[in-house]
């Protein structure tokens, strides 16, 4: 096997796995901070119980996010050393800033939050979880500043055989950051909303003790989920339009649009022949793709074949078409999961507004299983945005095949790929075992809650 394929596979596995935990951390940190703030402001014990119950699940998830993030900091050097040499002058800065500004913040204050319940005042303790939430989300911002450079390089000049930074603020002001970060943030909000609503639904079905905690959690959960899904979709729409401008090839691949069209039709279902670049079978809605790209039913959307010809003129001979089937299907999985989430969350919100909480057991069961939906959407979205950029690692500047470490052999990558996958698999089992235990155990009665801080057994 080719070392580039192995290194890519390893990056994909470790990154998608890492991003299993990140969105819940980002979204749930804010939600737990809101619960604790309400508790401190009102003294309402139910909010304290909610803080502790969801806080415990948050911590289990947080630990997994932290440790799998360590690999991320080092694997650019490990497997992508040519990339690090070529881009390090620009790419290293956001990573270092992320560590200084965000990792210290979240890691130091999470310790204070877990261990500090009886050591610092209540308001200060609530401030501490806000700092964790802010730290986590700033961390997401800076890593997306880095990723946005790969999608749309800005603020650089080619000098001394590498890309050198010549405008730091251009990196931060990169338009791509400001469509990508909100999309990630609101997806994280949706993820946390579904997590909270789904587990609450399970307890509502079972009529668990402390039902008030779960009724309230469910209502807040679906509200939070709805906000997250709606805003994520709206921002996602602008992100797609932005992408059509800066990476038209990614959009063409997402739509399996072989030839340029005006007005462009949107595919609902395509079976294509990727080699010959043509449809075998397709159901398409006329004009809809133009509408998505430009908010009107006309407008030229360029197709794969035209773009390939253009890129060959600009960048020289080569294949500039990303894997179309993967782009097409991951894009649809993401959007489809998002739509299903919207339907479920909106229905829940509508019912909750009328009746307090839904009683329909089928819906509650669906909501439990729907915890998986944001995870599917998040993973598919990242696979789409990274695969759709291929063959580039940094669009227009460096190809993925040129970025891999030349001094790391196939055997070494094979070893690390297997080792990471096995260890991650085992940890996932332990993580799910613990989440099930604590999510299923419910909320202890009043005395026990008062005595046992978060993290205690």
């Amino acid at each position, binding site marked *: 096997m080719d070392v580039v394929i192995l290194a890519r596979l390893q990056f994909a596995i470790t990154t998608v796995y890492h991003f299993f935990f990140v969105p819940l951390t980002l979204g749930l940190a804010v939600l737990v901070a809101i619960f604790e703030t309400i508790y401190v402001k009102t003294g309402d014990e139910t909010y304290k119980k909610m803080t502790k119950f969801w806080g415990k699940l948050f911590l*289990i998830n947080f*630990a997994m996010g*932290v*440790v799998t993030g*360590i*690999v991320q*900091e080092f694997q*650019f*050097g*490990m*497997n992508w*050393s040519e990339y*690090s*040499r070529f*881009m*390090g*002058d*620009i790419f*290293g*800065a956001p*990573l*270092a*800033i992320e*560590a*200084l*500004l965000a*990792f*210290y*913040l979240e*890691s*130091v204050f999470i*310790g*204070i939050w877990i*261990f*500090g319940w*009886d*050591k*610092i005042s209540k308001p200060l303790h609530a401030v501490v979880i806000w700092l964790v939430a802010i730290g986590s989300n700033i961390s997401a911002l800076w890593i997306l500043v880095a990723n946005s450079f790969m999608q749309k390089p800005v603020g650089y000049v080619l000098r*001394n055989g590498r890309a*050198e*930074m010549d405008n*730091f603020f251009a990196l931060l002001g990169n338009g791509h950051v400001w469509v990508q970060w909100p999309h990630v943030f609101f997806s994280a909000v949706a993820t946390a909303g579904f997590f909270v609503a789904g587990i609450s639904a399970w307890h509502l079905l079972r009529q668990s003790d402390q039902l008030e905690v779960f009724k309230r959690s469910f209502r807040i959960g679906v509200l939070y989920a709805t906000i997250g899904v709606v805003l994520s979709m709206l921002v996602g729409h602008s992100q797609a339009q932005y992408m059509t401008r800066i990476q038209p090839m990614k959009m063409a691949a997402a739509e399996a649009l072989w030839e340029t069209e005006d007005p462009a039709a949107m595919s609902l279902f395509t079976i294509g022949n990727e080699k010959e670049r043509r449809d075998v079978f397709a159901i398409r809605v006329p004009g809809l793709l133009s509408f998505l790209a430009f908010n009107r039913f006309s407008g030229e959307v360029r197709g794969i074949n035209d773009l390939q010809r253009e890129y060959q003129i600009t960048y020289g001979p080569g294949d500039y078409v990303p894997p179309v089937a993967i782009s097409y299907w991951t894009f649809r999985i993401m959007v489809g999961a998002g739509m299903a989430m919207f339907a479920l969350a909106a229905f829940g919100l509508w019912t909750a507004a009328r009746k307090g909480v839904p009683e329909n057991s089928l819906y509650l069961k669906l909501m439990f299983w729907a915890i998986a939906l944001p995870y599917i959407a998040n993973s598919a979205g990242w696979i789409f945005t990274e695969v759709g950029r291929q063959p580039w690692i940094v669009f227009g500047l460096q190809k993925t095949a040129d970025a891999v*470490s*030349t*001094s*790391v052999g196939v055997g*070494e990558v094979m*070893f*690390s790929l297997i080792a990471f996958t096995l*260890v991650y698999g085992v*940890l996932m089992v*332990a*993580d799910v075992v*613990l989440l099930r*235990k*604590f999510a299923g155990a419910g909320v202890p009665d009043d005395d026990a809650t008062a005595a046992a*801080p978060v*993290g*205690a*057994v």
Partner: protein
Amino acid sequence: MDLNTLWFALIAVLFVGFFFLEGFDYGVGILHPFLGKNDTERRMIVNTIGPVWDGNEVWMITAGGAMFAAFPHWYATLFSGFYLALVLMLLALIVRGVAFEFRSKMDEPGWRTTWDWVIFFGSAIPALLWGVALANLIRGVPIDGNMNYVGGFFNLLNPYALIGGLASLTLFTLHGATFLTLKLGGGLEDRARVYAGVIWYPAVLFLFLFVAGTYWMTDVHERLGLDPGVVPTVAVLALFAGRWTISNRRDGWSFILTAISVVFATVTVFIALFPRVMVSSLDPDWSLTIYNAASSPYTLKVMSIVAGLLVPVVLVYQAWTYWIFRKRITPETHLHY
């Protein structure tokens, strides 16, 4: 001082801070299954570092990020070159972090024992590998004219590097033991002191061998002369003095002395390196230096401003954590982990 030198110094500071803080974390993790004779004791031991280990580990992440930002070639060559060693270290750190959080969340003895050993190996492996890595940095490794490491994994396991690894392993264990004499209560602190007294012997031996070996087996004596200078001498002398403080129950002093030893030993490594960041054993011209491995002046300037603004703030709030959790862990303490 130019910005390249400043960033070399800053990365040295990050490693110094990292080894000072994470050094005792590793030591606590290594001692944990032995020092703790039952579950309560083991929980007490883990809880001494519970609130701080995560923040301590960020020093390493930041050092990695700073290397990437300031010396991308150092970052690229080191981590692709020491690939398998780094994979082992990362795996160890991953399972170790999870172990702290997960260990006490289930009651089954099998679950807890498993995580106890994960904590042990997750701490011992990095403690050993850091010494191996730093020793190889100053000893020199095969780096070709394109800044690529061409040596393979077993090249890293030479006698000098292994002495370096054993020195860091034993020194961190001792550092952890003196930390525990300050943080534990209920009689466990006395046991920690006994352990410190025992580990002192190999720690002194390996640190001395490492410092001596640095003069014997690397080019340091040619470059800096035979007089070792103040820094390595202090590292060794502080450790010698630790014998007396440990025996006389001067626990605060024992911790300060092991800390000094860790700090000065780390500084020794960076002095031996400067102005190189990785030494090529094939051709001195192929060594990576703070100039040929560096980022552009503009990036260094930006990063200097960022670091100047942020580092002091980080130091303040991290110090505050140690203040909040300054009390000893006793059997009566509520154990969160």
